[in-house]
């Protein structure tokens, strides 16, 4: 009997500490500044325990009965605390208020536990032994919890399920207390059924926890997530708000269906319309098929070869009805050939020649992607250009990443081509930049395909004008052995986000 009692002490102490650690970790994850979060949470919690201890003197009757109730309450509040906090962060403004309230409620309840328990059992043993044993097991429980939490619980169960698991333990303590203190309790059947209900509710929570975090994550993106998948290469997320579909790759916005026509018309037509008889076109990247949609507006184009790394991406934009609605089933055209390959080695080993080459890669956020913006890469691409051919390069924003933009332009120039930088305003992106390049002087087009919404002959020259805040800067070229672009890009975006 004695040892069961003290295991109870050990467990309730562990539960209390786990709730506190969960709150501290969650706050650090979601709000940052872990020193502040942990300090204030530990402070509040210890202070609330003090309040609980002080309040314990006002409980005079039915000690065992109230102890069981406190354990049950702790099981419910503590067990669901993490799930509640996740949802509160995603759906409300009151995350911090809720968090500190929960910490105080849990602290008060935990503060009540030990004084009550000591009073319940004081007649069974010497007071000297009660104090010694209760406090020993209390501290042992704390040690156990603080070791379990980082090593097993967080990595294997996560925050939501760890809290639920310890909620179940709390409720289990309540349940077996009804046997340990049976002689001091009336109506044990009611109490026991209540305990079973709480344990069942928490068990359901434990199993369904994934859905709760999922629901919370959905809300961290502004709009409803309609598709999310981790492919071998990237994290693809599609969101929808009314008629606006957005594609995110590794959380970077790729397009918004409301204004992507501006981006893709500007990417394709100034170049492709300027080529006398374009027959063969190459697209590097552009797995959404939107650039290909624009290219297919030219009946003279006999074949479009698209090289994109990720087969799941091109499959998605070939088969999903909502997305093929956006790219007008461009990947299903018999003129289009999709190749899933890493672009640089493909360009390096393939020997075909093309009249127009579109390079539409993700921004150079790391050294791997940075290779696709080097002199060596552009030289390799240039070998595929036909005599009168042109290529166009997605080149980040000349407004937000001005150094990067002009670095890319310089890199293409040093790869031995004539360059014609231009830019376009895309509301969901801001000012966006492209570089047209070729072996010969670029002559703007004299006609365009019918039905364009953004590019027209009259306003096209304006795209090639850069106002002072985006004007050319003298930048070094980006090379494989000296990738200055990745540093510039990093710095450019840091400058505007702080």
């Amino acid at each position, binding site marked *: 009997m004695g040892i069961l009692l003290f295991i109870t002490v050990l467990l309730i102490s562990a539960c209390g500490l786990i709730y506190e650690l969960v709150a501290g970790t969650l706050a650090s994850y979601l709000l940052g500044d872990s020193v502040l979060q942990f300090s204030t949470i530990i402070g509040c919690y210890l202070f609330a325990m003090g309040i609980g201890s002080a309040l314990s003197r006002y409980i005079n009757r039915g000690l065992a009965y109230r102890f069981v109730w406190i354990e049950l309450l702790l099981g419910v509040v503590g067990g669901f605390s993490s799930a509640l906090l996740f949802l509160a962060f995603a759906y409300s403004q009151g995350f911090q208020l809720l968090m500190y309230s929960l910490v105080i409620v849990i602290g008060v309840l935990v503060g009540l536990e030990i004084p009550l328990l000591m009073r319940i059992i004081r007649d069974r043993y010497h007071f000297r032994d009660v104090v010694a044993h209760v406090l020993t097991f209390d501290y042992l429980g704390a040690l156990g919890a603080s070791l379990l939490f980082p090593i097993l619980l967080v990595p294997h169960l996560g925050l939501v399920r760890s809290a639920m698991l310890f909620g179940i333990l709390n409720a289990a303590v309540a349940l077996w207390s009804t046997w340990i203190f049976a002689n001091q309790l009336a109506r044990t059947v009611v109490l026991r059924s209540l305990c079973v209900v709480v344990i069942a509710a928490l068990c359901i929570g434990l199993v369904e926890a994934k859905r709760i975090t999922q629901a919370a994550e959905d809300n961290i993106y502004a709009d409803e997530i309609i598709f999310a998948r981790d492919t071998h290469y990237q994290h693809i997320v599609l969101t929808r708000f009314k008629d606006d579909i957005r594609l995110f790759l590794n959380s970077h916005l790729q397009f918004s269906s409301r204004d992507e026509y501006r981006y893709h018309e500007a990417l394709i037509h100034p170049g492709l319309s300027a080529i006398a008889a374009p027959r063969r076109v190459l697209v590097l990247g552009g797995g959404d098929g939107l650039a290909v949609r624009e290219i297919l507006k030219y009946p003279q184009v006999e074949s479009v070869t698209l090289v994109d790394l990720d087969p799941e991406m091109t499959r998605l934009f070939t088969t999903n009805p909502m997305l093929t609605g956006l790219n007008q089933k461009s990947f299903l055209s018999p003129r289009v050939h999709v190749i899933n390959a890493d672009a640089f080695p493909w360009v390096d080993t393939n020997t075909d020649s093309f009249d127009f080459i579109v390079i539409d890669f993700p921004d150079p956020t790391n050294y791997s992607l940075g290779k696709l913006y080097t002199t060596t890469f552009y030289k390799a691409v240039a070998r595929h250009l036909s005599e009168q051919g042109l290529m166009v390069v997605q080149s980040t924003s000349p407004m937000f990443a001005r150094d990067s933009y002009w670095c890319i332009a310089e890199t293409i120039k040093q790869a031995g081509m004539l360059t014609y930088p231009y830019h376009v305003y895309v509301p969901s992106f801001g000012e966006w930049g492209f570089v047209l390049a070729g072996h010969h002087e670029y002559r703007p087009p004299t006609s365009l395909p019918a039905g364009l919404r953004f590019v027209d002959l009259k306003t096209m020259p304006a795209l090639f004008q850069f106002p002072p805040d985006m004007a050319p800067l003298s930048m070094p070229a980006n090379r494989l052995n000296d*990738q200055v672009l990745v540093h510039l890009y990093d710095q450019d975006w840091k400058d505007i986000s702080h």
Partner: protein
Amino acid sequence: MGLAAKSEPQIIGGFVNDSFQQGHLLRDRAAFPSPKRIEKVPIVIVGGGIAGLSAAWRLHKSGFKDFVLLEMCDQAGGNARWGENEITAYPWAAHYVPVPGRKAIYVRELFEDIGVLKDGKWEERFLCFTPQERLFLYGRWQEGIEPAIGLTQSDREQFRRFEEQIHRFRETGKFTVPMEMGFSEGNAELDRISFADWLREQRIDSHTLNWYMNYCCRDDYGATSDQTSAWAGIQYFASREPEEKGPLTWPEGNGWIVRRLLERVGPLVRTGQMVHRIVQNGSRLKVFAGDAEYQAEFVIFAAPTFLAPYLIEGMMPLRTFEYSPWLTANLTLDRMPRSYGTDPTWDSVFMESPTLGYVDATHQTLRTHVDRTVWTFYWALAEGSASQNRRLLLSSDWSYWKEAILHDLERVHPDIRQCVSRIDVMRMGHAMARPTVGSIFSTERRSLAKPHGNLLFANSDLSGFSIFEEAQYRGVVAAEHALRRVSR
């Protein structure tokens, strides 16, 4: 709770390219079979490492093709040998060449010949890609190997003073690659003390700086800074002033250069031919290898020079040549370990480790996405006596080295055991010459290095230390000497 213990994946592998057995036959003066045939060849090159292959390249390029190159191992290349598996080619030892300066005329000529240098421009895909190097210290990675984080005011001041000193040495033009070009009697003093002592004389007591100096000596010479001549320590820093961000490297390391050389001289290279005796016979030399006796006008001895007294009849034992034992390993990774804070680099070094870190064979890929790779792990057994380390190298089994390597890597990649599927280990008892105190200005080294007679020494160890440019220089110089005198 459904927590199943993860079982450790099986790691296979073993020792590869062992060649000490053949060496020990020579050392123990074993009996070799008598020759069954005689072959008359004007020039015989002994040893198919970079020195021997460079001699062959020079002869061949001058239109002289009447020679043979005899290589003991089944694969030519010596310290520039390479391997290949289904993932990538990878080096077994030497894995890069610093971008050569103007004085390295023979290396520049070679690089023009094999497409590395075109119209005065270095081929970009052979220059090491960004990010080149990283160092693990204080529990995190930094870019570059020279420690740059956590420096005290005094560390910085000492780094600055050291750089000023090196700058002065560089300005004298007496420290060059190849070393022969600038070699000056005036610096003999520097060969009388160790690099560690010289640093002490300069009042450089920074722990960080001394770690870095010691690392550089272990990396280039296989010796600690107190085993290295101060002249050689200074040579390491003062001899290079690259015109381009380098170094030059390839997936198979310097094996790529060997491949290009073999494309040219391959038919004249005979592998698996251990030379066991060389005898002067009037004006000619007899070279015994396998079942053949070669009768040559000139022999270019490009094998490590310490072997010479065991092969050449009548040669006195050598006194100054010391060699460093090394261990390299190639690790096959079926997935990349988690790496926090930096993009993976070409070369990764861990501070305060007895090893030299590892190099990634797929770093020079043009791909943006890599799932599997091969790492070459380098370990110069520098601490303590070379002979003791050689015994350790031979007496410890493969799993001893496997565990030692994994322990070292685990400090920086906790999940490494989950990533590696194979570890092949290569043991080299005499991997490279050690530029010990007094070795650079020793009369023995200098007289062997000077080509005379019809037996020409060409190994890089004649420079006192084993680096690509020295091997190539010695090979080419010996070939030119022979070319001028050989009867055609």
